[in-house]
Protein backbone atom coordinates (compact mmCIF):
# COMPACT_ATOMS: atom_id res chain seq x y z
CA UNK A 1 0.00 0.00 0.00
CA UNK A 2 1.01 3.61 -0.52
CA UNK A 3 0.50 6.73 1.43
CA UNK A 4 -0.21 9.89 -0.55
CA UNK A 5 0.30 13.24 1.18
CA UNK A 6 -1.29 16.25 -0.50
CA UNK A 7 -0.82 19.75 0.86
CA UNK A 8 -2.51 22.71 -0.81
CA UNK A 9 -4.77 25.69 -0.22
CA UNK A 10 -8.05 24.89 1.53
CA UNK A 11 -9.86 26.60 -1.32
CA UNK A 12 -8.88 23.75 -3.65
CA UNK A 13 -10.25 21.15 -1.29
CA UNK A 14 -13.46 20.52 -3.18
CA UNK A 15 -11.65 19.98 -6.45
CA UNK A 16 -9.15 17.55 -4.93
CA UNK A 17 -11.83 15.62 -3.08
CA UNK A 18 -13.76 15.32 -6.30
CA UNK A 19 -10.73 13.76 -7.93
CA UNK A 20 -10.32 11.35 -5.03
CA UNK A 21 -13.97 10.36 -5.02
CA UNK A 22 -14.00 9.82 -8.78
CA UNK A 23 -11.03 7.47 -8.45
CA UNK A 24 -12.91 5.58 -5.75
CA UNK A 25 -10.16 5.74 -3.15
CA UNK A 26 -10.96 3.57 -0.12
CA UNK A 27 -10.87 6.64 2.14
CA UNK A 28 -9.02 9.82 2.93
CA UNK A 29 -8.30 12.10 5.85
CA UNK A 30 -8.37 15.88 5.74
CA UNK A 31 -6.58 18.15 8.15
CA UNK A 32 -7.49 21.77 7.72
CA UNK A 33 -5.84 24.81 9.31
CA UNK A 34 -2.36 23.77 8.20
CA UNK A 35 -0.05 26.63 7.42
CA UNK A 36 3.35 26.76 5.84
CA UNK A 37 5.55 28.12 3.15
CA UNK A 38 5.99 26.85 -0.33
CA UNK A 39 8.37 28.10 -2.99
CA UNK A 40 5.97 30.81 -3.96
CA UNK A 41 3.49 31.69 -1.31
CA UNK A 42 3.39 32.17 2.41
CA UNK A 43 0.30 31.10 4.28
CA UNK A 44 -0.30 31.83 7.92
CA UNK A 45 -3.16 30.95 10.18
CA UNK A 46 -3.54 34.63 10.99
CA UNK A 47 -5.08 35.24 7.60
CA UNK A 48 -7.79 32.68 8.06
CA UNK A 49 -10.40 35.27 8.92
CA UNK A 50 -9.96 36.93 5.56
CA UNK A 51 -11.43 33.90 3.88
CA UNK A 52 -8.09 33.17 2.26
CA UNK A 53 -8.09 30.05 4.32
CA UNK A 54 -5.00 28.19 5.22
CA UNK A 55 -3.76 24.92 3.77
CA UNK A 56 -5.31 21.50 3.91
CA UNK A 57 -3.28 18.36 4.40
CA UNK A 58 -4.90 15.30 2.86
CA UNK A 59 -3.67 11.78 3.53
CA UNK A 60 -4.78 8.86 1.38
CA UNK A 61 -3.78 5.27 2.00
CA UNK A 62 -4.36 3.35 -1.21
CA UNK A 63 -2.84 1.14 -3.91
CA UNK A 64 -0.24 2.48 -6.34
CA UNK A 65 -2.52 1.97 -9.32
CA UNK A 66 -5.14 4.33 -7.91
CA UNK A 67 -2.44 6.94 -7.52
CA UNK A 68 -1.36 6.46 -11.12
CA UNK A 69 -4.95 6.93 -12.15
CA UNK A 70 -5.34 10.23 -10.30
CA UNK A 71 -1.87 11.59 -11.03
CA UNK A 72 -2.74 13.86 -13.95
CA UNK A 73 -5.81 15.40 -12.38
CA UNK A 74 -4.08 16.09 -9.09
CA UNK A 75 -1.02 17.52 -10.80
CA UNK A 76 -3.21 19.83 -12.86
CA UNK A 77 -4.92 21.19 -9.75
CA UNK A 78 -1.69 21.62 -7.85
CA UNK A 79 0.18 23.24 -10.69
CA UNK A 80 -2.50 25.88 -11.05
CA UNK A 81 -3.14 26.77 -7.43
CA UNK A 82 0.10 25.55 -5.85
CA UNK A 83 0.64 22.72 -3.40
CA UNK A 84 2.69 19.57 -3.13
CA UNK A 85 2.10 15.81 -3.37
CA UNK A 86 4.38 13.05 -2.11
CA UNK A 87 4.13 9.27 -2.06
CA UNK A 88 5.63 6.91 0.48
CA UNK A 89 5.35 3.28 1.46
CA UNK A 90 2.84 2.19 4.09
CA UNK A 91 1.74 -1.22 5.38
CA UNK A 92 -1.63 -1.80 6.98
CA UNK A 93 -1.34 -2.77 10.64
Amino acid at each position, binding site marked *: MKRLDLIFSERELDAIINTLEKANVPGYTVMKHATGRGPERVVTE*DMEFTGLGSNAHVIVFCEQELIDQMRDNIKADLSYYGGVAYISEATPL
Partner: protein
Amino acid sequence: MEINPILQNVLAPPVLFFLIGAISIFFKSDLEIPAPLPKLFSLYLLLAIGFKGGIEIQKSGFTDQVLPTLGAAIMMSLIIPLIGFFILRYKFDVFNSAAIAAAYGSISAVTFISAESFLEGQSIDFDGFMVGALALMESPAIIVGLLLVKFAAPNNRPNSRKMHLSSILHESLLNGSVYLLLSSLIVGFLTAFSNPAAISKMEPFTGQLFYGAECFFLLDMGIVAAQRLPRLKNAGSYLIGFAIFMPLFNAFIGVFVAKLLSLGPGNALLFVVLCASASYLAVPAAMRMTVPEARSSYYISTTLGLTFPFNIVLGIPIYMSLVNKIIPLSPL
Protein backbone atom coordinates in the same frame (compact mmCIF):
# COMPACT_ATOMS: atom_id res chain seq x y z
CA MET B 1 -6.12 72.51 14.98
CA GLU B 2 -5.03 70.06 12.29
CA ILE B 3 -3.37 67.69 14.76
CA ASN B 4 -6.23 67.73 17.23
CA PRO B 5 -8.71 65.44 15.44
CA ILE B 6 -5.88 63.03 14.62
CA LEU B 7 -4.92 62.78 18.27
CA GLN B 8 -8.54 62.47 19.29
CA ASN B 9 -8.97 59.68 16.76
CA VAL B 10 -5.86 57.91 18.02
CA LEU B 11 -7.11 58.07 21.60
CA ALA B 12 -10.39 56.28 20.83
CA PRO B 13 -10.50 52.68 22.14
CA PRO B 14 -10.74 50.97 18.73
CA VAL B 15 -7.63 52.74 17.45
CA LEU B 16 -5.82 52.24 20.76
CA PHE B 17 -6.51 48.53 20.66
CA PHE B 18 -5.32 48.42 17.07
CA LEU B 19 -2.11 50.10 18.17
CA ILE B 20 -1.48 47.80 21.11
CA GLY B 21 -1.96 44.86 18.76
CA ALA B 22 0.62 46.31 16.39
CA ILE B 23 3.01 47.27 19.18
CA SER B 24 2.87 43.72 20.55
CA ILE B 25 4.51 42.59 17.30
CA PHE B 26 7.22 45.24 17.40
CA PHE B 27 8.05 44.26 20.98
CA LYS B 28 7.89 40.56 20.09
CA SER B 29 5.24 39.84 22.72
CA ASP B 30 3.70 36.41 22.30
CA LEU B 31 0.17 37.81 22.48
CA GLU B 32 -1.87 35.75 20.04
CA ILE B 33 -5.50 35.53 19.01
CA PRO B 34 -5.64 32.04 17.57
CA ALA B 35 -7.74 31.04 14.59
CA PRO B 36 -10.71 30.87 14.25
CA LEU B 37 -11.41 33.58 16.83
CA PRO B 38 -10.72 36.46 14.44
CA LYS B 39 -13.14 34.82 12.03
CA LEU B 40 -15.82 34.87 14.75
CA PHE B 41 -15.46 38.62 15.14
CA SER B 42 -15.26 39.23 11.41
CA LEU B 43 -18.45 37.21 10.82
CA TYR B 44 -20.12 38.98 13.70
CA LEU B 45 -19.20 42.44 12.45
CA LEU B 46 -20.46 41.73 8.93
CA LEU B 47 -23.71 40.28 10.26
CA ALA B 48 -24.26 43.20 12.62
CA ILE B 49 -23.35 45.89 10.07
CA GLY B 50 -25.66 44.34 7.52
CA PHE B 51 -28.53 43.82 9.92
CA LYS B 52 -28.42 47.34 11.32
CA GLY B 53 -27.96 48.78 7.84
CA GLY B 54 -30.98 46.92 6.54
CA ILE B 55 -33.10 48.31 9.36
CA GLU B 56 -31.91 51.84 8.71
CA ILE B 57 -32.59 51.59 5.00
CA GLN B 58 -36.08 50.32 5.65
CA LYS B 59 -36.70 53.10 8.15
CA SER B 60 -35.34 55.95 6.06
CA GLY B 61 -36.86 54.65 2.87
CA PHE B 62 -35.50 55.54 -0.52
CA THR B 63 -35.35 59.30 -0.18
CA ASP B 64 -34.01 61.67 -2.83
CA GLN B 65 -30.46 61.26 -1.71
CA VAL B 66 -30.38 57.50 -1.39
CA LEU B 67 -30.46 56.34 -5.00
CA PRO B 68 -27.96 58.89 -6.38
CA THR B 69 -25.57 58.09 -3.54
CA LEU B 70 -25.81 54.35 -4.10
CA GLY B 71 -25.38 54.89 -7.84
CA ALA B 72 -22.31 57.04 -7.28
CA ALA B 73 -20.89 54.43 -4.91
CA ILE B 74 -21.21 51.73 -7.54
CA MET B 75 -19.68 54.01 -10.12
CA MET B 76 -16.70 54.74 -7.88
CA SER B 77 -16.07 51.05 -7.34
CA LEU B 78 -16.05 50.56 -11.12
CA ILE B 79 -13.78 53.49 -11.92
CA ILE B 80 -11.19 53.21 -9.14
CA PRO B 81 -9.98 49.75 -10.21
CA LEU B 82 -9.53 51.00 -13.76
CA ILE B 83 -7.42 53.94 -12.62
CA GLY B 84 -5.47 51.72 -10.24
CA PHE B 85 -4.88 49.18 -12.97
CA PHE B 86 -3.23 51.70 -15.26
CA ILE B 87 -1.07 53.08 -12.48
CA LEU B 88 0.06 49.59 -11.52
CA ARG B 89 0.70 48.34 -15.04
CA TYR B 90 3.88 50.47 -15.18
CA LYS B 91 5.51 48.02 -12.85
CA PHE B 92 3.39 44.87 -12.60
CA ASP B 93 1.95 42.27 -14.93
CA VAL B 94 -1.76 42.09 -15.76
CA PHE B 95 -2.55 39.59 -13.03
CA ASN B 96 -1.02 41.47 -10.15
CA SER B 97 -2.22 44.84 -11.41
CA ALA B 98 -5.79 43.64 -11.73
CA ALA B 99 -5.84 41.97 -8.33
CA ILE B 100 -4.37 44.91 -6.45
CA ALA B 101 -6.54 47.41 -8.32
CA ALA B 102 -9.68 45.43 -7.49
CA ALA B 103 -8.77 45.51 -3.80
CA TYR B 104 -8.57 49.30 -3.86
CA GLY B 105 -11.83 49.62 -5.75
CA SER B 106 -13.59 47.55 -3.11
CA ILE B 107 -14.03 48.54 0.51
CA SER B 108 -13.03 47.64 4.05
CA ALA B 109 -15.97 47.26 6.39
CA VAL B 110 -13.83 47.80 9.49
CA THR B 111 -12.47 51.07 8.14
CA PHE B 112 -16.08 52.08 7.55
CA ILE B 113 -17.16 51.32 11.10
CA SER B 114 -14.07 53.07 12.43
CA ALA B 115 -15.24 56.14 10.52
CA GLU B 116 -18.70 55.74 12.03
CA SER B 117 -17.16 55.56 15.51
CA PHE B 118 -15.12 58.64 14.70
CA LEU B 119 -18.26 60.52 13.65
CA GLU B 120 -20.08 59.45 16.80
CA GLY B 121 -17.13 60.63 18.85
CA GLN B 122 -17.41 64.01 17.13
CA SER B 123 -21.23 64.01 17.39
CA ILE B 124 -21.62 64.35 13.62
CA ASP B 125 -24.75 62.84 12.10
CA PHE B 126 -24.75 60.28 9.32
CA ASP B 127 -27.38 58.09 7.68
CA GLY B 128 -27.92 54.38 7.95
CA PHE B 129 -28.36 54.00 4.22
CA MET B 130 -24.61 54.50 3.79
CA VAL B 131 -24.30 50.85 4.78
CA GLY B 132 -26.11 50.18 1.52
CA ALA B 133 -23.26 51.92 -0.29
CA LEU B 134 -20.82 49.78 1.63
CA ALA B 135 -22.61 46.62 0.59
CA LEU B 136 -22.89 47.67 -3.04
CA MET B 137 -19.23 48.60 -3.48
CA GLU B 138 -17.77 45.18 -2.77
CA SER B 139 -18.81 43.26 -5.85
CA PRO B 140 -18.36 45.69 -8.77
CA ALA B 141 -14.65 46.06 -8.07
CA ILE B 142 -14.23 42.30 -8.16
CA ILE B 143 -16.08 42.14 -11.45
CA VAL B 144 -13.88 44.85 -12.99
CA GLY B 145 -10.76 43.11 -11.73
CA LEU B 146 -11.78 39.79 -13.23
CA LEU B 147 -12.85 41.37 -16.51
CA LEU B 148 -9.46 43.06 -16.74
CA VAL B 149 -7.83 39.66 -16.36
CA LYS B 150 -10.22 38.13 -18.87
CA PHE B 151 -9.54 40.67 -21.57
CA ALA B 152 -6.05 41.97 -20.88
CA ALA B 153 -4.33 38.74 -19.88
CA PRO B 154 -2.02 36.97 -22.33
CA ASN B 155 -3.68 34.14 -24.19
CA ASN B 156 -1.63 31.40 -22.61
CA ARG B 157 -3.75 30.85 -19.50
CA PRO B 158 -4.67 27.19 -19.14
CA ASN B 159 -7.81 26.38 -21.09
CA SER B 160 -9.83 25.00 -18.23
CA ARG B 161 -9.50 28.29 -16.40
CA LYS B 162 -11.13 30.52 -18.99
CA MET B 163 -13.24 32.89 -17.00
CA HIS B 164 -16.89 32.72 -17.81
CA LEU B 165 -19.24 35.51 -16.89
CA SER B 166 -21.07 33.13 -14.59
CA SER B 167 -17.98 32.36 -12.56
CA ILE B 168 -17.12 36.04 -12.39
CA LEU B 169 -20.55 36.81 -11.00
CA HIS B 170 -20.29 33.88 -8.62
CA GLU B 171 -17.00 35.07 -7.17
CA SER B 172 -18.18 38.63 -6.85
CA LEU B 173 -21.62 38.06 -5.36
CA LEU B 174 -21.33 34.78 -3.46
CA ASN B 175 -18.01 35.32 -1.81
CA GLY B 176 -18.57 34.54 1.89
CA SER B 177 -18.21 38.03 3.27
CA VAL B 178 -20.14 39.72 0.45
CA TYR B 179 -22.91 37.18 0.86
CA LEU B 180 -23.12 37.54 4.63
CA LEU B 181 -23.19 41.33 4.48
CA LEU B 182 -25.80 41.47 1.71
CA SER B 183 -28.03 38.81 3.18
CA SER B 184 -27.87 40.27 6.70
CA LEU B 185 -28.86 43.56 5.15
CA ILE B 186 -31.88 41.87 3.62
CA VAL B 187 -32.71 40.18 6.92
CA GLY B 188 -32.53 43.56 8.66
CA PHE B 189 -34.73 45.12 6.02
CA LEU B 190 -37.35 42.36 6.20
CA THR B 191 -37.30 42.41 9.99
CA ALA B 192 -37.85 46.15 10.19
CA PHE B 193 -40.64 45.73 7.69
CA SER B 194 -42.56 42.79 9.12
CA ASN B 195 -41.39 42.26 12.65
CA PRO B 196 -40.24 45.49 14.29
CA ALA B 197 -40.50 43.97 17.78
CA ALA B 198 -37.60 41.70 16.92
CA ILE B 199 -35.30 44.69 16.40
CA SER B 200 -35.05 45.44 20.08
CA LYS B 201 -34.45 41.77 20.83
CA MET B 202 -31.47 41.80 18.47
CA GLU B 203 -30.21 45.14 19.77
CA PRO B 204 -28.05 43.80 22.65
CA PHE B 205 -26.26 41.48 20.22
CA THR B 206 -25.95 43.57 17.08
CA GLY B 207 -25.99 46.98 18.76
CA GLN B 208 -24.67 47.17 22.28
CA LEU B 209 -21.97 44.59 21.82
CA PHE B 210 -20.74 46.11 18.61
CA TYR B 211 -18.26 48.66 19.89
CA GLY B 212 -16.47 46.22 22.18
CA ALA B 213 -16.34 43.53 19.53
CA GLU B 214 -14.93 46.09 17.12
CA CYS B 215 -12.16 46.83 19.64
CA PHE B 216 -11.37 43.17 20.07
CA PHE B 217 -11.23 42.62 16.32
CA LEU B 218 -9.02 45.66 15.86
CA LEU B 219 -6.63 44.27 18.45
CA ASP B 220 -6.22 41.30 16.15
CA MET B 221 -6.04 43.48 13.07
CA GLY B 222 -3.18 45.37 14.70
CA ILE B 223 -1.31 42.11 15.16
CA VAL B 224 -1.95 40.96 11.61
CA ALA B 225 -1.14 44.34 10.04
CA ALA B 226 2.14 44.62 11.90
CA GLN B 227 3.07 41.09 10.85
CA ARG B 228 2.35 42.01 7.26
CA LEU B 229 4.28 45.27 7.20
CA PRO B 230 7.80 43.80 6.85
CA ARG B 231 6.69 41.79 3.83
CA LEU B 232 6.12 45.04 1.98
CA LYS B 233 9.88 45.38 1.62
CA ASN B 234 9.82 42.67 -1.04
CA ALA B 235 7.04 44.47 -2.83
CA GLY B 236 9.26 47.44 -3.60
CA SER B 237 8.85 51.16 -3.11
CA TYR B 238 6.48 51.62 -6.04
CA LEU B 239 3.86 49.48 -4.34
CA ILE B 240 4.51 51.04 -0.95
CA GLY B 241 3.97 54.47 -2.45
CA PHE B 242 0.82 53.20 -4.17
CA ALA B 243 -0.60 51.96 -0.86
CA ILE B 244 -0.51 55.49 0.59
CA PHE B 245 -1.07 57.55 -2.53
CA MET B 246 -4.06 55.60 -3.81
CA PRO B 247 -6.31 56.09 -0.76
CA LEU B 248 -5.49 59.80 -0.70
CA PHE B 249 -6.19 60.09 -4.41
CA ASN B 250 -9.45 58.17 -4.11
CA ALA B 251 -10.46 60.28 -1.14
CA PHE B 252 -9.85 63.38 -3.20
CA ILE B 253 -12.12 62.20 -6.01
CA GLY B 254 -14.59 60.96 -3.43
CA VAL B 255 -14.95 64.28 -1.69
CA PHE B 256 -15.85 66.04 -4.91
CA VAL B 257 -18.38 63.39 -5.81
CA ALA B 258 -19.81 63.79 -2.30
CA LYS B 259 -20.06 67.52 -2.93
CA LEU B 260 -21.89 66.93 -6.19
CA LEU B 261 -24.29 64.66 -4.31
CA SER B 262 -24.76 67.40 -1.65
CA LEU B 263 -24.05 64.93 1.12
CA GLY B 264 -23.87 66.27 4.65
CA PRO B 265 -20.46 66.10 6.35
CA GLY B 266 -21.15 62.76 8.08
CA ASN B 267 -22.34 60.96 4.96
CA ALA B 268 -19.60 62.64 2.97
CA LEU B 269 -16.92 61.29 5.28
CA LEU B 270 -18.34 57.79 5.01
CA PHE B 271 -18.48 58.08 1.22
CA VAL B 272 -14.88 59.27 1.10
CA VAL B 273 -13.77 56.48 3.43
CA LEU B 274 -15.45 53.89 1.21
CA CYS B 275 -13.52 55.24 -1.76
CA ALA B 276 -10.25 55.42 0.15
CA SER B 277 -10.39 52.04 1.85
CA ALA B 278 -9.21 48.81 0.29
CA SER B 279 -10.56 45.31 0.70
CA TYR B 280 -8.70 42.59 2.59
CA LEU B 281 -11.61 40.18 2.88
CA ALA B 282 -13.74 39.71 -0.21
CA VAL B 283 -11.28 40.70 -2.93
CA PRO B 284 -8.25 38.70 -1.77
CA ALA B 285 -10.43 35.63 -1.25
CA ALA B 286 -11.89 35.97 -4.74
CA MET B 287 -8.55 36.70 -6.40
CA ARG B 288 -6.80 33.82 -4.69
CA MET B 289 -9.27 31.49 -6.37
CA THR B 290 -9.61 33.03 -9.79
CA VAL B 291 -6.27 34.71 -10.39
CA PRO B 292 -3.71 32.47 -8.70
CA GLU B 293 -1.08 34.00 -10.97
CA ALA B 294 -1.19 37.13 -8.82
CA ARG B 295 0.96 37.07 -5.69
CA SER B 296 -1.34 37.23 -2.71
CA SER B 297 1.42 38.80 -0.63
CA TYR B 298 1.20 41.88 -2.87
CA TYR B 299 -2.50 42.58 -2.54
CA ILE B 300 -2.72 41.57 1.11
CA SER B 301 0.40 43.26 2.43
CA THR B 302 -0.53 46.56 0.83
CA THR B 303 -4.17 46.64 1.90
CA LEU B 304 -3.69 45.14 5.33
CA GLY B 305 -0.16 46.18 6.23
CA LEU B 306 -0.26 49.77 5.05
CA THR B 307 -3.53 51.14 3.68
CA PHE B 308 -5.69 49.82 6.49
CA PRO B 309 -3.55 51.17 9.37
CA PHE B 310 -3.03 54.42 7.50
CA ASN B 311 -6.77 54.91 7.09
CA ILE B 312 -7.62 53.91 10.64
CA VAL B 313 -5.04 56.06 12.34
CA LEU B 314 -4.40 59.05 10.08
CA GLY B 315 -6.69 58.78 7.09
CA ILE B 316 -10.06 59.25 8.73
CA PRO B 317 -9.25 62.55 10.48
CA ILE B 318 -7.45 63.76 7.34
CA TYR B 319 -10.48 62.94 5.21
CA MET B 320 -12.70 64.70 7.75
CA SER B 321 -10.74 67.91 7.43
CA LEU B 322 -10.81 67.48 3.65
CA VAL B 323 -14.58 67.15 3.81
CA ASN B 324 -14.85 70.20 6.06
CA LYS B 325 -12.78 72.26 3.60
CA ILE B 326 -14.40 71.21 0.38
CA ILE B 327 -17.99 70.87 1.52
CA PRO B 328 -19.18 74.06 3.19
CA LEU B 329 -21.47 73.42 6.10
CA SER B 330 -24.97 74.02 4.93
CA PRO B 331 -27.14 75.90 7.43
CA LEU B 332 -29.54 73.63 9.26
